[in-house]
């Protein structure tokens, strides 16, 4: 039976520490930033964004929104646009797969992604001398000039599959497959699992009343859900008109 892997991220539990970002980068051999890199040219397949309720003073509230590839399940914006099939939705897992070795770096998929969850390798990947010995053997280093993004830690899925095969099992043991960010989260805010499995904790979490998805009205059926009890945080799901008028006055 084919899985639909996804996240349910409890924004009330996120302290914005950044452990998920670090764990993700280390797991996936993402290079450190060159001197000239900025938040707009960085490589952060998992990116925690700081948001606020827009009020100054004691009434100000802040929250943190971890953003990875949403692995859209319908009309996946990046898949249709890629001219040479470097992006595909995996039938077995629902993972939206980005293949840097196939990519020609036209960046059309980046303009197509409403979540800005895709990143371009503007520089040759470089580590301080000797540090290449600290790279994760399970993941190939990407080259300059290609797009990359969250592929849900394929290396971990690989070893899970291999383990299953060695044990003569057909399906992987869910406990063996946990992406680095979910594993790293110190508050357990990032819940990972198979959204197609009714017994999986993510299933019930994704269907709870506090759950929502970003820009759900685009109809791309993202497989990353968010969860919060606070109204102002929920309001960030869609781009409503107040903010626009706000901007008008600004």
């Amino acid at each position: 039976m084919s899985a639909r892997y996804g996240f349910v991220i409890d924004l009330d539990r996120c302290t914005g520490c950044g452990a998920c970002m670090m764990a993700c980068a280390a797991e996936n051999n993402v290079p450190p930033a060159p001197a000239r890199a900025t938040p707009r040219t960085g490589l952060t397949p998992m990116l925690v964004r700081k948001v606020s309720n827009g009020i100054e003073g004691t009434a100000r509230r802040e929250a943190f929104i971890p953003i990875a590839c949403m692995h859209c399940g319908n009309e996946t914006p990046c898949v249709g646009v890629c001219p040479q099939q470097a992006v595909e939705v995996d039938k077995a897992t629902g993972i939206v797969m980005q293949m840097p070795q196939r990519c020609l770096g036209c960046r059309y998929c980046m303009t197509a992604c409403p979540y800005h969850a895709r990143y371009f390798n503007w520089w040759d990947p470089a580590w301080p001398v000797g540090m290449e010995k600290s790279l994760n053997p399970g993941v190939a280093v990407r080259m300059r000039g290609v797009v990359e993004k969250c592929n849900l830690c394929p290396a971990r899925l690989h070893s899970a599959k291999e383990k299953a095969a060695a044990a003569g099992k057909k399906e992987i043991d869910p406990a063996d497959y946990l992406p680095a960010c979910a594993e790293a989260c110190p508050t357990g805010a990032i819940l990972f699992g198979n959204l197609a499995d009714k017994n999986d904790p993510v299933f019930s979490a994704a269907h709870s009343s506090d759950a929502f998805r970003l820009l759900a009205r685009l109809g791309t059926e993202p497989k990353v859900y968010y969860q919060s009890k606070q109204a102002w945080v929920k309001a960030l799901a869609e781009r409503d008109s107040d903010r626009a008028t706000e901007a008008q006055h600004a």
Partner: protein
Amino acid sequence: MKVTRRDLLIGSAGAVAGLALTPVPWKLLNDVSIWTQNFPWIPQPAYGPVETKYSACTLCESGCGIRVRMAEKFPVGVAGVRSHPLTKGALCPLAFAAHQLNWHPRRLREVRHAGRAASWAEAQAAFQKACGEGPIAIVDGRPGRAVSSVFEAFTRKHNGSYQAVLSAESQALAPYADWSGVPVASLGYDLENARTIVSFGAPVLDGWGTPGRFTQLWSERAAGAADPQLRLIQIEPSLSRSAARAWRWVRVREGIEAQLAAGLARVLLEERLVTQPGPMPRLSLAEAAAQTGLAPEAIRDLSHTMMENRPVVVIAADGNPAIAALNVLLGAVATPGGIVRKRGEVQPHVPDDPVPESIRAMLVDSTVPWEFAAQANAEVFRFAAWDGGGDRAGWLLPAPGFLEELTDVPTSPTSALPTYAVAQNLVALPIGVQSAAQFLVKIDPTMPAVEKVIHARCGEIFRSRQGSVYGEHPIAATKVDSAQHLEEQLRKGAVWMGEPPSPGKFRCELKEWPMENRVAPATSWATAWVPPVFPALATKLYQESNLREPPAERRG
């Protein structure tokens, strides 16, 4: 026949047409694309099989349990350990790239003296000479370790003094130690039983104490709820991470913690909100309000809220006695959900010796924060794995880096239960690198080896028959068959944890209300992080995103 230029042209035209019928253009096209997929200048990860080891992180005093993936003799990944009783799988963000630190450009691999390259022999000779002349001092950034006792023994023998540089968390417990006589290392916070936690600017959700312990407590009992089981009240001038996620954020002026504490104490006493009487602060509520920038009403409300659901405990960012006194007043000392005394024999916190006016030489351990300012006119022997920058007179001695040294990990200061772990030297020590302990043993061979001390401590723990050993699955200490076996377990990455504290056991006497105005030390988001450099990937947190403010200049 004569070959004209025209013939050449036609001939080459033919050649071009011919080539199209050979593999040349097509295979080249293919190979060139493959070349772009494996640019030779792009590093290749290791190829060999990967093995998993367990240990404890030694980059700060928290001693979090870590799972390390090793390939070709080097660590290629760090993760938390869910079965760890204290950290429960949590790590600070920087730890996830800690395995990069040993390759940091600022890594020290050679002895330096006054900014120039020198040799271990010279350093040794110089220190020997200094010991001869005396007095010397050894500064330890993390007391209670096996090596600490080596330091102490050495100072005892060579008319020196042992100095400890305490973390902010330990400093915050110092007042109770002064008042009760219980050593700081034996004190801790029983957060698990508290229902209201008032933090005076302590970054309780951002690196305070042991990552994972409080954050998980908070996420289970507080996060998002309008009326949570566990109320976190953050008193802070700015909207820090802890303030942003707290149940209440009380915005106050910079550096007025003592005044606010006094104001709260007044309300508590005047309105009989607390049972036992205590010394009345000199500061009146009106004065306190004026100085803190809060309305008297706000202070009154705050004190009422504090008492609403108890037990309540106050957490200070540093050793401010006024805030400690507030805990005494609240009856949060030696009671469940407050400041408690760890049960059993905790590794004695080596007391600071009185510092002589003039010190001939100072040996500074690599666990001491880079900012530590050694006493003037003392010859400094600074052990460090990474160069924190700034030109330093004296000796800079390359110390073991991440996972390169066998050391033990005593209880983290904020913990309510005693713990003991051992960090193996999983990575071979680079040539030219040496730990302070090894250095001292070379100078005085009678000094005990760290191994021996660890062995002895494992023996003590085994004999105490308390607590449990948390390996793959926890087992009661009584079930461990031998000290040997216990040591093996710990060396394999298991951690021992003692029994939970029993209430009482010590009292704090307050003669008069302490009023000490001090500005809490500015806590950066990685204050607890001892290495003076960050792992390369930390750029994700501040340079490649706006998640965090860039670290202070000294950071690598």
